[in-house]
């Protein structure tokens, strides 16, 4: 069994998450080769073949050309699996490669169960096992689900990858940096975050009051920020800030993977949610099963009295 692992490269650097592909391939028991559209200086540490195409020539993001490059590597390597990270790069490119091959694609794998791939659905409340019916299969793996332990090692055997220089249908203009943060949640010892479960914007001060009573900062989940209830600078998660406070209190946050990615390193996690099955319960040290808007004011009063 062979797997072709597609590395990620952005702003001149190999992304560390590329090593998660190696961890996954190891678990799969597959012999593997990697593809990097980047630079030789940034080749991944790996005891095996790395197909290398020059990002200077093919761009860091050019889905049509990158698709052709990956297809070229597939033609040379003849893999059973083509594996991407489930990321802004991977979920964009994987279906293009799968469509060109007319191969089955399995998205955002979180685990291997026997010979099938496990994926989540309905906000991680249910899992499905999925199998491909095609000879080749395109896979994307959930970020963080297959962590690479130890130091990456090995000297890759580089092989040049080239395709014609035609332009693609998507023209890359440039990067825009993340907005500067006026609130630095990464230094906060206590964060109390509001999720959609608080019901409405008018309830935000109730959550902020608990944050203040605990001497901490107000955080927020993505839907609350998108709805305009709390400023983006307070967002915790994969597209917001990654935090590691001593105490994290999640108020009415169900626990989407993107949010968990930003706060699971907190020393102690308290979740308040009326849904006992909410995925946040999986990582919380304490899950308070209650209506968040009933519980929080009572608890804030309690904290203030001490």
């Amino acid at each position, binding site marked *: 069994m062979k797997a072709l692992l597609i590395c990620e490269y952005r702003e001149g650097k190999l992304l560390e998450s590329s090593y998660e592909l190696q961890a996954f391939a190891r678990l799969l028991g597959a012999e593997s080769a990697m593809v990097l559209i980047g630079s030789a200086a940034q080749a991944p540490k790996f005891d095996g073949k790395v197909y290398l195409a020059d990002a200077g020539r093919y761009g860091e993001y050019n889905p049509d050309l990158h698709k052709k490059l990956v297809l070229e590597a597939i033609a040379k390597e003849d893999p059973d699996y083509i594996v991407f990270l489930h990321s802004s790069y991977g979920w964009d490119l994987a279906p293009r490669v799968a469509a060109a091959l007319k191969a089955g694609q399995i998205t955002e794998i979180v685990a291997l169960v026997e010979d099938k791939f496990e994926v989540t659905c309905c906000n991680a409340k249910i899992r*499905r096992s999925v199998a491909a019916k095609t000879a080749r299969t395109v896979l994307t793996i959930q970020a963080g689900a297959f962590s690479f332990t130890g130091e990456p090692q090995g000297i890759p055997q580089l092989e040049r990858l080239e395709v014609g220089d035609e332009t693609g249908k998507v023209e890359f203009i440039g990067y825009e940096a993340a907005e500067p943060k006026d609130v630095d949640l990464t230094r906060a010892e206590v964060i109390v975050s509001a999720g959609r479960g608080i019901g409405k914007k008018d309830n935000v001060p109730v959550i902020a009051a608990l944050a203040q009573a605990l001497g901490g900062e107000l955080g927020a989940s*993505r839907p609350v920020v998108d709805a305009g209830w709390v400023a983006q600078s307070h967002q915790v998660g994969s597209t917001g800030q990654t935090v590691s406070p001593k105490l994290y209190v999640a108020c009415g946050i169900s626990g989407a993977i993107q949010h968990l990615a930003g706060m699971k390193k907190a020393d102690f996690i308290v979740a308040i949610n009326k849904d006992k099955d909410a995925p946040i319960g999986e990582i919380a040290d304490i899950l308070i099963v209650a209506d968040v808007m009933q519980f929080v004011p009572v608890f804030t009063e309690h904290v203030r009295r001490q």
Partner: protein
Amino acid sequence: MKILVCIKQVPDMESRFKINSEGTWYDEADLAFRMNEYDEYAVEQAVQLKEQLCGEAEITILSIGPDRVVEAIRKGLAMGGDRGVHIQDSKYYQKDPWQIAATIAGYAEKHRFDLIFTGMQSQDRGSAQVGVTLAEQLDFACATTAVGFAYDSGSIAVKRELEGGGKGVVRLKLPALVTCQMGLNTPRYPTLPNIMKAKKKEFQTVPISELLREAELTATGRMYPPAKKGAGLILEGEVANLSERLFALLKERTAVFR
């Protein structure tokens, strides 16, 4: 300009899910359904573009599923869509993303759309494949995960959201497909007069058998609840009592009150 918006109707994610008797999908009984949240941004962007073009656009709202999805299509029409298309399929959950994309492509090929909007993924299955696959099947330019969108004389600029909060800006020429991320815009609430008007808009119903010619490429085995890790403590009961217990536990197990 001819615009297509592909939407899905999904259960409220706050629901408690049960597995159906086939063991391969959730049981739809007792679930409240609504428009997939990502798709609301897709509809809104189409309507904003039509406004920018001073009405010189026609927006088709399409959905695949059982009869309940008509309600989601009507919402899209009340938000500003012009015509609805319901592709009837009571066994929609047995189709894989390749087949769903092929079905829409079967419809789209006959109608020559300039621009297609989809959500970046559905909240239930979350394959994030249908939009991109549809673009590939139609040979459209495609940008995913849009958090910014601008149209100017035949070309569009899309801001793609990247990990860490940065963005990648890309330009595409029509015909194109854009998959929409949350936060792209502020989806409007349909007003009562618009809800009434939506009921009179053109509405077409097509059985899926007329459009789907492709076999599935992947198959769902079982569907099941995740194994409970059960590491944490679950507290239930009266609010006052819960508050006491939480306070005592935080005092004992964290340094916050020291």
